Each structure stands twice: as C-alpha cells, then as structure tokens.
C-alpha cells in the first residue's frame, strides 16, 4: 500500500554548473549560476520561484558558505518557503523531501533546492580545503584527537571500512573495483572532472591516504553548485523538461555513539530510510533499476548497497565485475555518472543530480536503458545521517 504523496511531486528543473577547479568565484556565484540553469531547464521565470532551500558544503563549515542571505543576492521577493538546512550529506535528500511536502500541501509552488560550494583555492590541495574546515584548536577531551594524530573524515571512514573489511574479508582490490567502475561511467559524463581511463593497477599504485584507503578510494573536492526545482506533478507535466517524479522518501539517522551497545561503521541509516521510502513508493529492493549512492569513499557504496537490502552483508562487492576496466565487463547500474569519486563532489546533490538525469533518460551514452525506478541516497557524518529519494519517469 503506497502513500498518497507517491508520484504527486517531481523535480522539474535541474541546474549543474561547471564543476571542479573553477576559480575566482564564491559559493553564492555558483548558486546563482545553478538556479539560472535550473529555471531555464524547467522553462520557468525567476518570479515563479517561491521557495528556497539552501545547503552549503565545506564553505559552510568554514563560515563562507551560502545561507539565508542568498535570497537577497538572488533578489527573490516572492518566497513562501525559506530555510538553510543541514544534515550534512543527507541534506540534499532532506531539502527535496521538505520541498515535496510543502508543494504537495500548497505552501509553495516551485521550490529551488540549492547546494553550492567553493572550497578549492588556486594552488591549494583538496586535502587542505577539507582538512582545514573548522580546524580550531579543540579543548577538553576533543583535544586528544590531534594529540593522537586523528584528522579529518578520511580517518573516520577508513576506520569504519577496516572493521567491515576484516569482518567480511573484503580486500583493497575489491574497493578498487568500485573505484574503477565509477571511473568508467565518469568517462561518459560531460559534467565529470576525472575522465581519464583507470585500471586496477592505477588504483593500487595511487598513494595511501589513510590505509586501507588509497587516494582513489576518496571523493573529489569540487567548486560548483547544483539546483533542483521541486513542484507538484500536475505542474511538472506542463513544463519544458521531463519530470523526475518522487515516488518515495525516507530518512534514517543512527548517530554515532562510541559505546559497545552501538555498532558503528558497519551500519548506516540506509536500512531505516530505505524501508520508509520503499513503503511510501509501494516498491522493494528488487524493483530498483538504477542506484545513485552517496560515495564519499568506495566503502560507503558497498555499505549502502547492503543496507538497502540489494545484497547480503559483506556481499555487495559481488555486484561488481572482477575487472571493471575490461570493456566487455557488465557494470552494475550504480553511480552511473561517476559519483563523487570521479565526477563532482556536491554532497548529496551528486547522486540526486545523476538520479534526475537517469530518471529523465537524458544520460546520453551512459544512460541506463531500464530506468523506471532510480534509488538515490545521501549520507552524512560518519554514516550518522541518511536520506533516501526514489525517482521515476512515471508518476504511477
């Protein structure tokens, strides 16, 4: 039994800016470019936009990200819905969910959901951009972290991955199979930053970051923005571009308590979020055609596949070919744009933007033929927060 909101709302506009090492602009500028592209894609006018939800990325943690003032920067004077939302990588899903509920109940007609970020500086590394975010000398027990040499998200995800790998006998070569698979897709994605071919040898030869993670286990850091416009299904049908209907939505937030009572690192919020979204959609894991999963690290993809019930615990790697660089290899329909590992790092908007493209059937040479049910995930913290969207070209 599906929910009454199933198929009643849609993403009607998508704007993806230039991505990656694009210098000389702040996050607001990218946000402005993304909403311009999105209203053009939808065939809307600026004044049609009556809802604005924003999510800054790394620049938000640095204090220079987009927030409520974006309304005035964009001169949006008709807003009936406005918020700055944050559940880290789950925010993009959450924004679209909030927007969908709002338009369904008449609180707004066209809600622009924007992720924008510009942490990369010319001459600075991606690691500097991320490692520097929010680094002020901590006090109390938190000060033990730098005293022990713990730094950054790479470390906390590597710790999670190690526990998973030892438990299930998953190897670095397995993680490499995820990385190489996604690069194959990125080669066909004009928005992607990393489009040169990759082999498993390249993966193994890439430098260690935090063992068990090589460089090619870790996502990019990107400057850019993605805007999605959410409206009702009835409005979306009459607009310029094909709608991506929202069939299911869910969230799951297990948190991250450091105690024996709580398994951390080998579980995510996808289990709860997925159950909620599948129930709303009246669908199950077996109905999914395409997966766009939050992939801050290769490991996160395997974790997410299993937590949605698409593979048994420890068996997600079985969906991947032994050598995904082999042109004959049959690639899983997972992260078909290259994901954050190879295309662009827009937090939860990376999987959702590719999910909209796949649901519309506009993926060009990387388009998955069967794309009726597109499962998109967002994930934040160290597997602490999770959001799910199920998109489809069909409202029914």
């Amino acid at each position: 039994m599906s929910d009454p909101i199933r198929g009643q709302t849609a993403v009607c506009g998508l704007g993806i800016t230039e991505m990656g090492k694009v210098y000389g602009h702040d996050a607001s500028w990218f946000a402005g470019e993304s909403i311009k592209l999105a209203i053009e894609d939808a065939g809307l006018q600026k004044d049609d936009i009556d809802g604005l939800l924003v999510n800054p990325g790394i620049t938000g943690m640095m204090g220079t990200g987009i927030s409520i003032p974006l309304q005035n920067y964009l001169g949006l004077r008709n807003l009936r819905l406005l918020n700055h939302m944050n559940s880290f990588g789950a925010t993009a899903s959450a924004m679209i969910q909030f927007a969908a509920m709002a338009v369904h109940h008449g609180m707004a007609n066209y809600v622009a959901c924007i992720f924008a970020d510009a942490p990369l500086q010319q001459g600075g590394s991606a690691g500097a951009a991320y490692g520097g975010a929010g680094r002020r000398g901590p006090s109390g027990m938190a000060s033990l972290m730098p005293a022990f040499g713990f730094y950054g998200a790479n470390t906390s995800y590597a710790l999670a991955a190690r526990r998973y790998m030892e438990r299930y006998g998953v190897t670095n070569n397995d993680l490499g199979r995820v990385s190489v698979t996604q690069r194959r897709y990125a080669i066909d994605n004009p928005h992607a930053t990393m489009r040169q071919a990759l082999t498993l040898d390249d993966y193994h030869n890439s430098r260690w970051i935090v063992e068990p993670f090589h460089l090619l286990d870790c996502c990019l850091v990107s400057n850019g923005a993605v805007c999605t416009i959410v409206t009702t299904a009835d409005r979306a049908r009459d607009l310029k571009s094909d709608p991506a209907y929202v069939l299911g939505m869910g969230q799951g937030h297990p948190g991250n308590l450091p105690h024996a009572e709580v398994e951390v690192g080998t579980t995510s919020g996808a289990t709860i979020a997925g159950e909620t979204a599948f129930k709303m959609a009246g669908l199950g894991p077996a109905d999914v055609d395409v997966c766009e999963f939050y992939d801050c690290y290769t490991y996160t993809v395997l974790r997410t596949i299993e937590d949605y019930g698409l593979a048994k615990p420890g068996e997600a790697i079985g969906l991947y070919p032994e050598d995904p660089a082999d042109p004959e290899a049959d690639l899983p329909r997972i992260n078909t744009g290259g994901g954050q590992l190879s295309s662009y790092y827009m937090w939860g908007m990376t999987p959702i933007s590719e999910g909209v493209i796949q649901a519309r059937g506009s993926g060009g040479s990387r388009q998955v033929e069967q794309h009726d049910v597109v499962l998109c995930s967002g994930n934040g913290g160290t597997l602490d927060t999770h959001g799910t969207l199920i998109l489809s070209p069909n409202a029914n």
Partner: protein
Amino acid sequence: MAYDKPLPNPDASTQPFFDALQEHKLLLQYFPSADHFQYPYSDRCYKDWSTDWEWRESSGNGEVYTWVRMHQVYHPSWKAEIPYTLAVVQLDEGPRMQTNLVNVDVDDIRVGMRVKIAFEDITDEFTLPKFEPA
C-alpha cells in the same frame, strides 16, 4: 628533541581526567542511575539524561574495535611518524576511545585483538592514554 606534536588542552570539566592520566590512571564518567560508563566527557548521561555522575578508574583493558595507518600529513609535527597507527579501542567497561597502538608490529594488528593501556608521558605536564597488546 622537544615534543612538538599537538598537546591536550584540558578545560575545567576535564582537568581531573588529564591530571589522573599523569598519575597513570584512566578515568571514565560513571552514571549510577543508568549503571553506565561514558566517554568522552559529557555533562549528561545520554541513556537516561541524568546529570549525576562520578569519575571511576577504568581497568584499562579492552580490544581493538578498528584501526588504520595514517599516511597523510595534516600537521607538520607528524611528518616523521608517517605512517602511524590510529585505533579505536573498545574498553571492557563499554565506551570506545580513539587512541594510538604502540609496541606492536603492524602486521599483527587485528580487529578484536586484546589490548591494555600503555600510558605515555609526552611532556612534564601531559600523559596520553595509548594501548598495547595485552
């Protein structure tokens, strides 16, 4: 050579914890109403929201919950140590602690390996609670 890595920075609430480390004692917060040990410091028990607690000395025994080898330099003082071992230790009392593993061959480290505390006096003022094979 003088110790140049980042030093702990106690605040009023955690000063007793850092003082006890200097005496080679590991303290945990114990909340009697929930019979619950908690780490890191919080002014409230996350189980029953009680604010009544006392410091209790930990056995210092536990097992490796997970571990990694750090190869990236985030702070120049770590450069000479790269790669170094970071771990999360599951204490027998329940809480998990981030720490370093010492006195162990990296090839021998496994999830589930029994460990015990190894206090390291890094300066006259500070001692770090590291762990070694039990």
